[in-house]
């Protein structure tokens, strides 16, 4: 099990956060933290998503990247799993 923090840049379009959450769950990643803000001047949102899974994070990055309103996805932290931490 590995923990990751993704930073996702999005166009602030309808249900973009729901789309990311749906894909994250379906592709086998659990969420243990989220922070989302929108720059109302540019209509660009930034979502920090803390996830964990046994699966390689690249699988999730590729699937999130396919969503239409996504501008960029990157792993900003790769945290080794510590049980009961």
């Amino acid at each position, binding site marked *: 099990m590995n923990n990751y923090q993704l930073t996702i840049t999005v166009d602030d379009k*309808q*249900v973009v956060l*729901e*789309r990311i959450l*749906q894909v994250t769950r*379906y592709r086998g990643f659990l969420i243990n933290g989220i922070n989302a803000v929108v720059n109302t001047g540019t209509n660009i949102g930034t979502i920090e998503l803390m996830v964990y899974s046994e699966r390689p994070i*690249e*699988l999730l990055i*590729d*699937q999130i*990247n*396919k*969503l*239409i309103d996504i501008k960029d996805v990157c792993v900003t932290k790769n945290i080794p799993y510590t049980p009961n931490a």
Partner: protein
Amino acid sequence: MASDQKHTGGSLLFAVLQEHGVKHVFGYPGGAIMPIYDALYDSDVEHYLCRHEQGAAFAAVGYARASDKVGVCMATSGPGATNLITGLADALADSIPIVAITGQVPTAAMGSDAFQEIDVFGLSLACTKHSFQVTDINDLAGVLHQAFAIALEGRQGPVLVDIPKDIQMAEINCSLDDLSQLPNKVKLPPVDVTQAISLLSQAKKPILYVGGGVGMANAIDELREFCDKTGMPCVSTLKGLGAISPENENYLGMLGMHGTKASNLAVQESDLLVVVGARFDDRVTGKLDEFAPNAKVIHFDIDTAEINKRRKADSAILGDLKINLPALAIPLSITEWQKQCQANKAEFAWRYDHPGENIYAPAVLKEISDTMPKNTCVTTDVGQHQMWAAQHMLFNDPSDWLTSGGMGTMGFGLPAAIGAQVSRPTDCVIAVSGDGSFMMNVQELATIKRFQLPVKILLIDNAKLGMVRQWQDLFFNGRLSETDLSDNPDFIMLANAFDIKAKEISKKSEVTAAIAEMLDHDGPYLLKIKIDAEDNVWPLVPPNTANDKMMESI
């Protein structure tokens, strides 16, 4: 510059559809989509009333798959929208470009549990490539343009546009010429084939593994040229059937769970898999860890997310197959490997010397395949008949073979045949179905009747849910749970009730004349063939088993 025109939301919808070349839509009216159906009344778009929204969705899928057009379907809110969902899921799994329009309750009523209100926008997240809900009439035309662009760009797929009733009725002055399409989001890295060329040059036992992506990319010519230049033994997925020329001497047939023995043995022994528009589906690979265990992989695809998803690629080539395939089309020195594969192909060729007088479905399907007109489009449902059709029929183009691959949706075949017949009115269309699947969308016989579509239906009847029964016999100790359909209706009488000519046969001696009668008939026709309930689909790779450990009989 074009002058503004006055539109309602409904009339604007059809104006944009026509701008995208849409001539036919499939749908079913209802309360929350009435303004759109009112606008349809004045539109040149031809509407095909199906008898269930699922039928409309599958007809749109069949329409798109049989042609290079986008399929369009429409339904009202609530149950109309939920009935579309299975068709959209099917289109997503098989990457089919569909634009689905749903009516929604008025914006003021949304979120109030109004009559026939369902959050179809929320439901759509898991079963569409993208979706929209239009809450401002000024956004409608732009959203519809985006829907078409997204359905077609990159890996194709279904897009849903949910339009509340007040938006359908709202008025707007706009010029369609001012509307621009969404720029293509798909941006892929530059292609470097150096590694792939090196792998190809070193391979002694390469296999070309072809999937549905070849047809979606319109890269049939490029693929066949690749086959000719490399001489590589080649296999196909279920959805890829038709891409490789059936006359190709190195073509070994379908691979996977019900693939040919020659295909599966060759893949398992290969030292290089050249994977083109395919995705290592579990029905293809069997036990993934033991799939082609000694092979390196060159993976061509348009979808970055398919690379390394289930099998690591030693070389990934992302992008348009029409451009990328020729870059690797080099002659290979693999004569011994070709001979070995061809010998296996001959040794394990299908046999049709089935004992007894009862009809053997594979032989019927082969005979139809040998005698049907050129450019015939075959659809299937899901089950034993589907696998027999995939094994024993040959196709010259993937658009001649419409089957629910990824989703495996029973009830697909009949409405998909309707869509195919509408998109290709002069071609012969045959729906191959089983008695279980046929009943799943049997109401579409009324659509065939209404539009006098000359669809031919081959109903392979074993009075069972045959594939489930086969698995119950093989893997569940013969405990036949809920797979008996011996109380099926009289299918001949049922077809006749819809003014469809029908015939039943049960002996081998009747087959040739019955096929000729069906194919020669001008209008719709149902031919029911009675087969033994115990007939199985062979070979079969049991679940979680390597593909070379296939079962060939009980």
